[in-house]
């Protein structure tokens, strides 16, 4: 019985030394492991969605390979409703290597505007949960998670239609000038048009409408005067001092409307 006991003792000691050596070297490897996130890039996809491209730099100078790296991002609005999620999988990052991963997240602006018009007209923020799971040193599944708030710039920030001014166009028509302004705070350029309907509240019908072409680069202000012509027989200048506009937005990335803006 002496031999088996002695062999058991030797085997246990060897396993202990291997385990301690492994744990110590794995812990020591952490200091040679660096993660960094680059500046996110915004582009539009062929189907006119907004795509965030986040470069992730991984410098693995440790003793062990990183395996099954799974980077997941979930974008949600202020109420916690999911807007978009995306995953990037890297099978292996060998030790002693630098790796750059580009993690792409697609956001449908149409989906965002469906959640609430504040994303079109007010600067807001999107919550982003980032989860990076990987298998470190074969035996240690590890997960990094963090919540990041991304500022959301509204494409029609501060959109306003000013008070209409009426001028006599000819004997049968009245010209209406409406100042229109907004700032494009979004991360993308706006291209499309805005359609404004001049609405007669009493008759409940559209008196006239006008369309204005848009081509507004990001982070710029847009101000224009919208010209409408109203037939004189349909409206009296003295009585039509109040009503509302129906505004429809149509861009390459989203459609929205009507936005009802009263005047008078």
């Amino acid at each position: 019985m002496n031999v088996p006991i002695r062999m058991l003792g030797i085997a246990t000691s060897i396993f202990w030394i291997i385990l301690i050596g492994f744990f110590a070297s794995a812990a020591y490897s952490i200091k040679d492991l660096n993660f960094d996130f680059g500046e996110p890039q915004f582009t539009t996809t062929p189907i006119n969605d907004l795509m965030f491209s986040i470069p992730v730099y991984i410098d693995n100078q440790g003793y062990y390979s990183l395996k099954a790296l799974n980077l997941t991002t979930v974008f949600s609005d202020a109420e916690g409703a999911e807007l978009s999620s995306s995953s990037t999988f890297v099978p292996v990052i060998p030790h002693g290597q630098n790796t750059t991963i580009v993690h792409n997240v697609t956001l449908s602006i149409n989906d965002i505007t469906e959640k609430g018009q504040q994303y079109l007209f007010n600067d807001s923020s999107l919550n982003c949960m980032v989860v990076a799971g990987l298998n470190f040193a074969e035996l240690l599944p590890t997960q990094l998670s963090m919540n990041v708030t991304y500022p959301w710039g509204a494409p029609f920030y501060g959109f306003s239609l000013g008070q209409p001014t009426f001028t006599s166009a000819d004997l049968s028509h009245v010209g209406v000038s409406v100042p229109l302004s907004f700032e494009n705070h979004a991360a993308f350029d706006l291209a499309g048009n805005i359609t404004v309907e001049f609405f007669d509240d009493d008759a409940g019908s559209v008196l006239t409408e006008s369309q204005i072409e848009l081509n507004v680069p990001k982070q710029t202000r847009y101000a224009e005067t919208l010209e409408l012509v109203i037939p004189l027989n349909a409206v009296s200048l003295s009585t039509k001092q109040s009503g509302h506009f129906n505004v429809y937005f149509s861009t390459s990335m989203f459609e929205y409307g009507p936005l009802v803006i009263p005047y008078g």
Partner: protein
Amino acid sequence: MDNAKIARPNKVKDIAFRIAKATLKATFVYLLYFFAVPLLTPLFGLIPGIMETIQVFVTVYIMLMILGDLTERTIFHCFFNAARALFIVAYMVFSVGDGLISVPVDNFTLTVNLSILYTITALLGLLGLAKAIMEAVRFMSERAEGGLKP
């Protein structure tokens, strides 16, 4: 009288051998700890309190090991070895719990799944317990064969 004279130096020699063995083993384990701790430095920043936990573990482990070596060829040797093995298992159960360690680091949360490491350590502890039980069985059988009380 002659037998008593012969037995006394042998006993002294035996105790001296046990002390020397216990000292050597304790020194070896302490040196292992001494050289392994600097490698764990990156963990100290991530997991506060891990250093104290490791110190407590190593202190209790070395004490039980010394006691086990000093009481060699007695039934207490088996008890201390079994206690040491059970201490490892109990330590892992209480310190690691469900195998997941979550620590906040800067603005993110780091979660490490230590289940596999935990299982290996617990199995090594159980292997140590099995060895202690086998030693106890051998001890009892040798005593029974020699007609001596344990």
